[in-house]
């Protein structure tokens, strides 16, 4: 056996190095296990919270079972062969030259066909079922528009527009119409549903349904330019009653400044921001950038960073430093003006 390992690892006495390598390897393994336990998976496609992801997860698990079986069979045969049929030293006579075996070869054609058929049937049926536009009483329609590098969500049934945070009621099927303003994007919420691309000059469709309330991270999954890596959004799934309340608030949002600082911020907004950003219930109606109605209630700045005063100020000062390629210009504002602006934005609730 020792000879065998020498042959595998190269001749010479590596025992000392091997022991050291073993220690390093074990330490690494323990570290991996320890840190692995502390991980919290917020975007796992196997930790589903929605109907569509659930369907996809069951297909994924089925394929994992089948494929683990295949890998195990091959590995076991391989290890057996490598140990059993290694050449004895000095044995140079060729072994029996076997041409093949029809029976065996038929076996390993038929078995894969059966395994693939087991996977192919649910694949085909779910492919068709996921494609259907959902109909019925309890349906929400949302129009999703992707742009470099942010997301807009329109609720035609309610006449409201928002950005970066998609609010949906739980237990309700949501039909999504997907369009892009510029390049291709792809709309993906790992815990709720697989992705669908946003294609220039075309309207795509997908549906999803959240089964439990929560906040889910969404991702752009098609390379769309410099800021692709941080083109995130959130999906906030709420109990239907909470959702109705959110809709009511979005229809009639608070837009008045609540402090002197905030009032100053409103003026800055009017001068420097309103040409691109809209706020429902005010005169600000720019459409180039994200709608900021109810911005004070959002959890993230620019869809990616936690909503803190520092992050907001940093973003306003130089958007491209946080999100490369962002089309929002770094408007030259004094620090006091930015502070005022932050105060005003937090008042938009």
């Amino acid at each position, binding site marked *: 056996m020792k000879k065998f390992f020498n042959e595998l690892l190269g001749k010479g006495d590596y025992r000392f190095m091997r022991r050291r390598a073993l220690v390093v390897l074990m330490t690494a393994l323990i570290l991996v296990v320890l840190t692995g336990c502390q991980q919290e998976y917020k975007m796992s496609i196997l930790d589903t919270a929605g109907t569509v992801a659930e369907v996809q997860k069951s297909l994924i698990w089925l394929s994992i079972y089948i494929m683990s079986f295949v890998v195990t069979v091959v590995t076991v045969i391989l290890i057996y062969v490598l140990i059993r049929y290694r050449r004895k030293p000095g044995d140079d006579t*060729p072994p029996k030259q076997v041409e093949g075996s029809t029976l065996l070869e038929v076996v390993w054609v038929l078995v894969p066909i059966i395994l693939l058929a087991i996977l192919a049937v649910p694949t085909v049926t779910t492919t068709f079922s996921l494609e259907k536009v959902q109909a019925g009483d309890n349906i929400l329609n949302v129009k999703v528009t992707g742009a470099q590098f942010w997301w807009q969500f329109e609720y035609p049934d309610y006449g409201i527009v928002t950005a970066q945070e998609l609010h949906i009621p739980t237990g309700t099927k949501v039909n999504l119409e997907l369009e892009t303003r510029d390049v291709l994007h792809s709309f993906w919420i790992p815990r709720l549903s697989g992705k669908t691309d946003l294609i220039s000059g075309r309207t795509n469709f997908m549906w999803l349904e959240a089964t439990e309330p929560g906040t889910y991270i969404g991702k752009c999954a098609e390379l769309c330019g410099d800021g692709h890596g941080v083109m995130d959004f959130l999906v906030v799934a709420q109990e239907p009653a909470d959702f109705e309340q959110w809709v009511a608030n979005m229809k009639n949002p608070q837009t008045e400044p609540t402090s002197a600082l905030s009032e100053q911020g409103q003026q800055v907004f009017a001068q420097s921001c309103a040409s691109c950003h809209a706020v429902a219930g005010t005169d600000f109606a720019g459409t180039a950038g994200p709608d900021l109605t109810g911005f004070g209630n959002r959890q993230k700045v620019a869809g990616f960073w936690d909503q803190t005063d520092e992050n907001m100020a940093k973003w306003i000062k130089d958007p491209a430093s946080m999100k490369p390629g962002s089309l929002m210009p770094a408007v030259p504002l004094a620090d006091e003006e930015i502070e005022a602006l932050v105060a005003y934005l937090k008042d938009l609730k």
Partner: protein
Amino acid sequence: MAKKLEEVVTPSTPALRSGSKKGVWGWIYEWLTTVDHKRIGMIYMTIGIVYLAVGGIQALMMRAQLASPDNELFTGNFFNQLMTMHGTNMIFFAAMPLLFGLFNYIVPLQIGARDVAFPFMNALSVWLTFFGALLFNICWFFGDAPAAGWFAYAPLGLKTYSPGPGMDFYVLGLQIAGFGTLMGAINFIVTILNMRAPGMTLMRMPLFTWTAFISSVLVLFAFPPLTIGLFLYMFERIFGGIFFDAALGGNPILWQHLFWIFGHPEVYIVIVPAFGMVSEIVATFSNKRVFGYPTMVVAIVLIGFIGMGVWIHHLFTVGLGGMINAIFAVATMLVGIPTGIKVFNWLFTMWGGKIKFTTPMLFAIGFIPTFVIAGVTGVMLAAAPADYQFQDSYFVIAHFHYTLYGGVVFAVVGALYYWFPKFFGRMMHEGLGKWNFWTMFIGFHLTFFPMHFSGIFGMPRRVYTYNPGVGLELYNVLSTIGAYLMGVSVVLLVINILYGLTKGPKAANDPWGTGRTLEWAIPSPVPEYNFAQTPYVRGLDAWFIEKTEGKGKLQAAEPLGPIHMPSPSILPFIMAFGMFIAGLSIIYHQFFFTIIGLGIWAICMVVRSMNDDEGYHIPVEKIRSIEGEGA
């Protein structure tokens, strides 16, 4: 007759390999003008190794950026450039040249031929590849690199969203290299069909030659869509045409189809030869013929055939409709069947054999489970609704690196170790080779196995950063550690090559002792003319048959006589250089120079057509002195 032929030897007969005394410039000139398939093969392999290093460094830079969340080492546009250059370099300028190099060197030897069918065109192919790769990579010195990914989806890659010249370097560089690849493929197809030694029927061809043949056929059918796509891209970017820009009435999905009708077979173009190499290595070091040879051949043909018709699985999330997705999902799964045949046939080649664990054999053995993982994740991706989750996530990155690295690179490195003594007449270092294998094997799995998990836990590909606290830190740091370990193993490989070239022990004709195919019957390194006498082939594994049942040497199919050789020529290099000038000037809209570049090409063609070059002959005495007493 033989006497008369000897008299035609022209005074310009170049010195044989051993007798060159021309100094460095003469040496360089000899390589620039060579039409010898073996030297061209080496140039191809050198190009491949250089760009493997370039692409590898780009990969290590990306892994450095992704080692920790919120890292700001290489972000935004620069990261996208790295990612684009890495992918394009690795596929077009590392994998393809390495494979074409091996085809070039080995295929004529395995079929008992003296060269490829069109030596001149062969030289043209390699120099087009060289200049295409150069044109693509010099973009850094012109201040802009392509950043739209290696599949350059429109409209991101179009002028509106990529205004710099970077994408033009991508379009023109690939176009020029693509011409070379297409010519090379035609050359191999004709060579394999027409130039086999007597007795070498198709069903006696070594499996590596079979895979080279199928791979070349795939190139023949897959590259024209790319050529067309790149032409349209060029017209859209440089001459203001409209094909892909939806804002002006074009259709971005048209490019996706053209690219992936090429792009998916491309994967098979590079993996199929890897199957061939593994088959050769496994058979040699088990000292046993390939189990189920006819099924293996059928499996290769089937993989190639089905592989041409599954490209839509790259477009599952485009929204082409349930019917199309379902059909292509099932079609893609079918590829699993012939692939399974191959895996089990390898296992049963070793079953009952006498396995010798040399470095090439370790790489071939490492290939098998790795490639099985690549195959099964491929089937998982084929299940369309599951793919809606996997598509463009790190799971895909893991999958295709298991095929392209665990598959192609393992096989190619194994093949380098395997055929190195044949190339240079010297062995590489076995002990170092084993370190090379283990660092590469462990580094590879440490890099890419965790990527399955980062994909499942929601990490999209091509992102330059990720949030802390969402569960991605561990897998990314593991991948980074593994990537640097692989970097170490590539350094070991280069050291071992240098050792082999300078200090390696001298290799016999059949240095492994258990060679089965024709190339192991001739001297190492291979003389210019390959076979002193064209061999007569009596069955599959021709050399093994002669060793065990015959006289221990090849049977000749012709008497010993002067050997006709093609003359070297500088024209292919000049033609490719003309193409390079044309490409560069198109990028900068200097169309006057484009005409000059294409003019150089045209003039060379005329010169070549007018020149009635008979080639030259190697006299019998010279052959005798090279072959020794046996001839």
